[in-house]
């Protein structure tokens, strides 16, 4: 695997370069992708709906949510089809198969970091003063990425055998998005549902990241615990399934 790190580098480079080839705006799209929805939701929910945003500018609340969610969401969205899309490579050349989903995630990381920089600029424009809790931000982003890694490996492997996964994933991600406080604040959730709501592994992830940037109410211990369990489960499930069926990819794909 280590001997193939150059391959990982060039495959990642290919994915990143191809993504915005022959676009006029290029990397600007990376910033626009979270920014445009953030503006839409800020206008709809913040201005017209007057939904609470924990005392922060609504647009910033949405943007922080989208940045943290983006690592997980985009990893799975791009990575779940990666093995199937590389069927010509899998059936013609031997190399550690895990490089394919890993390479698909590299463009997610790069996009995510650019989105993060845009978020930092936006936060400074709104006069947010970074506190000591900013130090926790990398922890939550890593959490999002690791959960994304586990789910990507899981879905990409299953997708080789049953393409149904490819069709189901957009719905699953969208439903999950609605159940997570990304475009709204978890203040909206009634107290009696809060316990159940906190069992969603991504609630702590978003709330934690938002707290590290904007301050306010930190994620509850329950939220953080379910988040850590979620990471562990997705990684174990992802690697187990991937390794179990890796050898058969070339025969099935």
């Amino acid at each position: 695997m280590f001997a193939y790190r150059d391959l990982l580098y060039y495959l990642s480079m290919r994915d990143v370069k191809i993504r915005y080839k022959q676009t006029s705006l290029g990397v600007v799209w990376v910033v626009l992708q979270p920014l445009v929805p953030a503006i839409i939701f800020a206008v709809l929910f913040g201005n017209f709906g007057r939904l609470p945003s924990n005392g922060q500018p609504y647009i910033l609340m949405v943007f922080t949510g989208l940045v943290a969610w983006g690592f997980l969401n985009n990893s799975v969205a791009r990575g779940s089809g990666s093995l199937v899309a590389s069927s010509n490579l899998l059936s013609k050349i031997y190399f550690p198969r895990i490089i394919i989903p890993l390479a698909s995630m590299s463009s997610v990381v790069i996009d995510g970091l650019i989105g993060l920089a845009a978020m930092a600029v936006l936060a400074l424009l709104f006069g947010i003063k970074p506190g000591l809790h900013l130090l926790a931000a990398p922890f939550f982003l890593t959490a999002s990425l690791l959960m994304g890694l586990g789910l990507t490996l899981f879905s990409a492997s299953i997708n080789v055998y049953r393409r149904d996964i490819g069709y189901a994933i957009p719905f699953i991600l969208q439903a999950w998005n609605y159940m997570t406080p990304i475009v709204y604040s978890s203040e909206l959730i009634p107290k009696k549902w809060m316990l159940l709501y906190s069992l969603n592994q991504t609630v702590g992830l978003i709330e934690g990241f938002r707290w590290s940037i904007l301050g306010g109410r930190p994620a509850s211990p329950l939220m953080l615990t379910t988040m850590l369990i979620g990471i562990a489960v997705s990684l174990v499930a992802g690697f187990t399934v991937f390794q179990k069926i890796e050898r058969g990819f070339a025969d099935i794909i």
Partner: protein
Amino acid sequence: MHSPSDVAISVRSLGKSYKIQHQATSSNQTTRTSKRGFAWPWQDSNSSDKFLSETFWALQDISFDVPRGKVFGVIGRNGAGKSTLLKILSRITDPSTGQADIRGRVGSLLEVGTGFHPELSGRENIYLNGTLLGMRRREINAVFDEIVDFAEVSRFIDTPVKRYSSGMYVRLAFAVAAHLQPEVLIIDEVLAVGDISFQKKCLGKMKDVTGEGRTVLFVSHSLSTVNSICDECLLLEDGRTKLVGPTTEVTTAYFDMSQEESGSQLDLSAQPEGDEVAVLLSAKLVDQHGDSITYANLDEPFGIEIAYEIMDCRQPIIPNLHFFSGGTCAFVTTPAEPSDCRVGLHRAIAWLPAGLINAGNYTVNIAASSMNPVCVHFHLQDRFSFNVIEDVHNSSRQGYVQAIPGVIRPRLAWDIEAIRA
């Protein structure tokens, strides 16, 4: 036997099985095509009793050793298991039984240019393809200039390869592969690319490779290439070893084998050759009146008549005949006019004028393809063959009774006049 330290590839009782499924009701009919266009969830895989699952052995009980520094050829008809063997040796797929041990770093080339991306430049593709084939970045750096020179693309190295001509594309792809420096190189038919001079260059490169003590395992349909570069050969038939040994012995056996099972009258209607668009049903040699004959006469025109069925006619189906003499393609013929394309049975006859081809034995590969996109619907290889004989007392020989060399014997117009008495 060779001592273990001299053996680069050691294969022991290797087997590979696949599960195939077909409809129980139509087991006596052809099972290639499924009429179901839609996958009903409840008819999926093993869940329905309408489908029988059967184990198919693509390879069975294969054993051989390849000594270090030798070029080892693998030959056999389509479907004999050559590609499966290469995939196992390349570690792309696992064997079902037995084992294959390869000592040293393996480079495998089952296709030229795998992983090339049209949007990336030549330079970027060299690095991407090189690392895919198992090279490290610094190894590519070391041979980068050689690759570019070999491929003759130095002016275009920073141009996206989608702007390359197909020749440049293939040369670049092969150049990367040719500069792989594995101890064991596994190659599948990739020499069937590029023009003749480039092919010669590639063959030369392969000989260099073995000169440096590397081992090459080479799969090909071209008996002449196998004869010229391989030291030993394996002949596969229906997934089993037919013969292993010195190249000339094995290629002769293969040639004889394809002679035995071929002929000038083929009836394939029990097992038509082809895909879901078109299938070949029969082929026969006919005289100028359209009657079946067992051999052709040099002095008379004759035809090759094929019957095929078209099941789907979205694209015109173009029949084509590939004439081989002694393992070399003599020529290919296709109809000059686009043929009538309707669903149903078709008969096509290609007429050969008297004296076009010389006396001798010819093998004809019979294929049909369609364009846009280019797609081959059937391709019957090494099965149809016939002899052209001649009467040695015929007038054009003027008494000469020895064999006259050459693949063609056209009757040319000669102008002869006496210029000095």
